[in-house]
């Protein structure tokens, strides 16, 4: 083991894992994107409704390990009510953080810091990434206005 177990499974992570946010289906969504990590079998369904340029509501359903579920749940919690531009920036920051770069997350996103512990478990980094790259793909399609997002296949994107 490269890190200590509690580094990865911090209380916040386990809290999100046991009671994931964003489970509730939403009525209408402008962004819909699916994520898949064939190596792990993780599957994720993401729907976001955007009002003007602000995220109004999020639905995320992740079938996977504690890390991918917690990461998805954090995403749901963090992006709701935020301007789309900010959300994009945040997702990029998280992606960089998980890849080992030194990033400064915005003030009100402390929870996400807990994901850092995953970096000591190389094989698990993709689990934490899944939700965020799926979101980025969804936003990209939304901005292009080309309709349906392609399913994110994790190995292609990292």
């Amino acid at each position: 083991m490269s890190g200590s177990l509690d580094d990865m499974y911090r209380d916040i992570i386990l809290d999100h894992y046991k009671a994931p946010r964003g489970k509730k289906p939403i009525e209408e969504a402008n962004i819909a994107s699916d994520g898949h990590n064939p190596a792990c079998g993780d599957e994720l369904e993401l729907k976001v409704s955007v009002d003007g340029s602000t995220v109004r509501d999020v639905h995320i359903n992740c079938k996977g390990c504690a890390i991918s579920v917690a990461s998805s749940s954090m995403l749901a919690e963090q992006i709701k009510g935020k301007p789309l531009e900010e959300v994009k920036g945040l997702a990029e920051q998280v992606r960089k953080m998980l890849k080992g770069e030194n990033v400064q997350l915005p003030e009100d996103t402390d929870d996400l810091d807990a994901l850092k512990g995953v970096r000591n478990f190389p094989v698990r980094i993709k689990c934490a990434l899944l939700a965020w790259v799926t979101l980025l793909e969804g936003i990209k399609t939304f901005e292009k206005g080309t309709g349906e997002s392609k399913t994110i296949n994790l190995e292609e994107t990292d």
Partner: protein
Amino acid sequence: MESDIENRPTAQAKGLLPIDIERIKADFPILDQKIGDHQLVYLDNAASTQKPRVVINAILEFYRKYNANIHRGLHYLSEKATAMYEHTREHTASFIGGVQPKEVIFTGGTTGAINLVAYTWGEENISEGDEIVISEMEHHANLVPWVILAKKKNAVLKRIPVTPDGYLDLTNIDTIITQKTKLLAVTHMSNVLGTINPVEALAKKAHAVGAVVLIDGAQAAPHMPIDVKAIDADFYCLSAHKMLGPTGVGVLYGKAELLDAMPPFNLGGEMIREVRFDKVTWADLPNKFEGGTPNIADVVAFDSALHYLEELGMDNIRQHEMDLTAYTLDQLSAIPGLEIQGPRNSNQRGGAISFTDSDIHPHDISTFLDSKGIAIRAGHHCAQPLMKIMGKVATARASLYIYNNEQDVDALVKALGEMRRYFGL
């Protein structure tokens, strides 16, 4: 159990005593270590086994005393190295049931062995409309080459289903293996379910319709006596690293008449008779399939692995693993929330035991166990189609070998108990 690699017997010594696990454990230097605060408990043997001191020392000794390229070297080291390399071939031939040494081809592993057959025999013998029969429990190594070959040749890939309790479902076998069947490629023992398949009976059925039979022995060869002649396998494949040997060595056994008729593979030095710019003629078996400098040192050391296994006796190894598998299944069954895959009868299975928890993902199981020093594997185990059929995205898998004992299993069981508490369940 130290052996002088210069003077090694070829004969199969049959171990007679009950297996003394403590003595065996002591032969494996890696097992004597702590992972964090915990004694290492290695239960990832289906992925790769650890190496006894005699195998490690054989590599050491080879590089310290005998290393040279083999074949046609006219100096002392080269002659020695060649003799040792060929000795392992003879030993392997005897280990798998007494075949001709020239029927033993060294490859990089089981994957390499199966691919050799697909790229040569398959390329020449599979045509449009032909049927290739595999099972639903194949490892990707015995699946992907045939999926791709079938696609390329417009052949049909048919599969023997798996029952919910992890056996091959032979109910409709006579509609699966038919006159159109050209190849039956099936695993001797499942790396996910542990199931030992009735390869003899299947080979008989396949031969009755004139099909060729390839057995993936990667999981069987390490754990039970193998007799490819009794099975009547046309091809049998195995990996040294899963049976105490070094990484980078595999074996393709093939019947001489089949190998003789096949085009060569891995073209280069030592596998030719004569080369001109417009024409090449091939060397005889086994050289035809061993182009280039092989993995000499590791093939030489593989001999020591075979020797070690034989000293214990493959029957004894099988008995020990049956006993320990029964014990493990028993213990795991008592853990709430745990679901065990594969046959429950240890007579019909090996010690690769897949399980899932109703709430905890296999990756979390594996990471948690690792924090207790326990090495298992979690994932799809290179058997994605089987996972889908089982309705799982992944499983956790503990897999046993000769150096495991009840204490190892107890450590696993205790940790699994603590795990649910850790994850707040």
